[in-house]
């Protein structure tokens, strides 16, 4: 089955900037390799850690006899990728290698015992690793209040990571065993949030099912496509959370859907119904186990897509419904996490486009310094009517195996390596491999 590419005029959205270079030549590869070695060398130099140790506690201050306390901290990440083309997931480059510096500065403040505020500023080459110029962003910020001394109930307002799922609390470079996100948080579907899909043929074309031979469009369109969850989904809104015995409940209203890209996380919706409601119910039978069930529902098209809607439809007819289950376990040197999501993109005129995605991840610490993690990721796409009397999957089924050793040089520095084997049905390259190296300095 082959469909002609139906690419509408690109919407008014800033596309990702690509380097414009041809695939890396030998000299370029050497330079990248040098960068990799520099990363390793630098990390070795930092083993002394004297300077980093001297930073301990310096970035903290207090006032009113300790009732107001402010502390700054941060991480400096250096990442290097060797990747196939088209580049996988949320890596945006047309080159086969990419080097990313990233400075993240966190500010945490407590005002008495009932108010807590936090903010995160980043300087990097885009929220997701890309070949863009370096820029500064304020990624998340929020004010949280705990009205009672006993805790158990909190209210939070601002721009912050979603309460859906269980990956967000560990997505930072220091605590995440891997460098890239699990598949549900980064595998791009054929859905765009800038333009409404008008027909199954259009959706197949956007999903590149089947792939167009030697077409550069797949890489170029990457910035238009969305995953089930876009990383930690730092949307703007409010959240409430409570704990009753072994049950945790959290709910949020956000301005964007889970799949929305970082460019709209700051946009405020003009109507409540344009926002997304989500939540998670967790159950902890004991401290080692944690079970959760999540749900999220809201329109996935951005406001600028209004003029692309099917006649007679509204933007909130194009909804993303996400159901998720998560399980985690930690005991002694083992940590295990698993999440499964089903996401339904409602497309008037086409139907429901469902996709299923999940992962199983395990990490083992061999001591205070060395750990090893592995992660099995899987994503399926349901079939939709193809408009020609048959049915076809609207995306490429994918599995990916991630392997990741990590070594902590001390209290402030860590090196992680990740190697990923990916199989993508009907892709230009069915089997691909991605290697990433990350050095993190925490202060």
């Amino acid at each position: 089955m082959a469909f002609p590419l139906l690419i509408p005029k690109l919407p008014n959205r800033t596309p990702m900037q690509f380097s414009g270079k041809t695939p890396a030549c030998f000299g370029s590869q050497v330079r990248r390799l040098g960068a990799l070695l520099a990363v390793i060398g630098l990390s070795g130099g930092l083993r002394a850690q004297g300077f980093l140790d001297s930073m301990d506690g310096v970035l903290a201050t207090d006032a009113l006899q300790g009732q107001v306390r402010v502390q700054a901290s941060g991480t400096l990440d250096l990442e290097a990728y060797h990747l196939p083309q088209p580049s996988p997931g949320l890596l945006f480059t047309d080159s086969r290698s990419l080097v990313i510096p990233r400075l993240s500065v966190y500010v945490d403040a407590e005002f008495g015992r009932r108010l807590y505020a936090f903010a995160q500023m980043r300087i990097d080459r885009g929220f997701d690793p890309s070949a863009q110029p370096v820029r500064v962003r304020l990624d998340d910020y929020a004010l949280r209040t705990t009205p009672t001394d006993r805790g158990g109930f909190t209210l939070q307002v601002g721009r912050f990571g979603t309460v859906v799922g269980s990956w967000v609390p560990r997505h930072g470079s220091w605590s995440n065993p891997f460098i890239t996100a699990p598949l549900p948080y980064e595998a791009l579907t054929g859905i765009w949030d800038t333009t409404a899909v008008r027909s199954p043929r259009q959706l197949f074309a956007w999903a590149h099912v089947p792939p167009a031979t030697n077409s550069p469009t797949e890489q170029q369109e990457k910035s238009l496509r969305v995953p089930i969850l876009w990383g930690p989904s730092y949307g703007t809104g409010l959240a409430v959370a409570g704990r009753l015995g072994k049950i945790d409940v959290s709910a949020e209203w956000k301005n964007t859907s889970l799949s929305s890209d970082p460019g709209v996380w700051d946009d405020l919706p003009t109507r409540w119904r344009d926002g997304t409601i989500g939540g998670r119910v967790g159950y902890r039978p004991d401290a080692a186990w944690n079970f959760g069930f999540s749900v999220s529902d809201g329109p996935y098209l951005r406001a600028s897509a209004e003029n692309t809607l099917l006649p007679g439809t509204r933007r909130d007819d194009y909804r993303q419904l996400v159901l998720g289950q998560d399980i985690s376990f930690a005991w002694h040197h083992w940590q295990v996490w698993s999440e499964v999501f089903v996401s339904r993109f409602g497309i008037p005129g086409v139907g429901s486009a469902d996709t299923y995605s999940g992962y199983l991840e395990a990490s083992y610490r061999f001591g205070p310094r060395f750990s090893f993690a592995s992660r099995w990721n899987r994503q399926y796409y349901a079939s939709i009517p193809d408009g020609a009397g048959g049915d076809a999957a609207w995306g490429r089924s994918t599995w990916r195996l991630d392997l990741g050793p990590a070594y902590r040089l001390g209290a402030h520095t860590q090196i992680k390596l990740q190697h990923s084997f990916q199989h993508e049905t009907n892709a230009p390259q069915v089997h691909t491999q991605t290697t990433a190296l990350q050095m993190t300095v925490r202060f």
Partner: protein
Amino acid sequence: MRFRKSAPRASSPCLRAPKGGRGWAALGGLLVVLLIVPRLGAAAAIEGKVTLPPVRTAAPVQRNRYDILSSSPKAADDRNELSIVVRRGVAAPNPPVAVVYLEREGGVPRPARPPLARMEQRDQKFVPALLVVQVGTNVEFPNLDQGLHSVFTRTSLKPFDLGRYRPNETPPAQLLDQPGLWTMRCDIHDNMVGLVLVVPTPYFVQTDREGRFRLPDLPPGRYTLSVWKSSDTTLSVPVTVPAEGTVKVDFP
């Protein structure tokens, strides 16, 4: 002449008494009292005062931005409870206290059977935050909180990582067989820091909040008296302990 080892007063609840029949223990205790009490007046002691740095007022800030249900650790507002503050790479107790210990030239033999000490994980803290033990002591780290804790140390003396432990679970006790400062941390809670100061002598004591100390019942001889104030400050002075009487030593 018989002498009594000076037990670490502040951490005495953390030392376990040997198990045995109560009757025998009582009888033994009576004999010890009868033998020792008449000689106490003749025992030598060292006492004095250590000048301590000012109290730090601020507790660490919680950093739980992605755990919406988290709240401040209970100790955040408690100005009197001892905690460990790490500043400019220097770990020190707060409110400030010091540890005074007496090293004999040539050393003293280690206990034949390693004693057992205890550093608990409670209210998202190590309790006591500063534990002083003689070299060769087993230390256990029970988790008395409702959630998971981990225990690890990257000390160059003997790094170990005990992993994550459930509430009321006690990881295997660790033999601290090297003198020095062992910094304990929890991988789950960044703010948790505990110090175990392992000293090569049974004669040690923790000062009070004013810096006052007294090391009683010391055998006569030539010693080095040391005071530990923080991870980068240890002062030492040679002293001679007479057969009886009290030697006064103040530390700046």
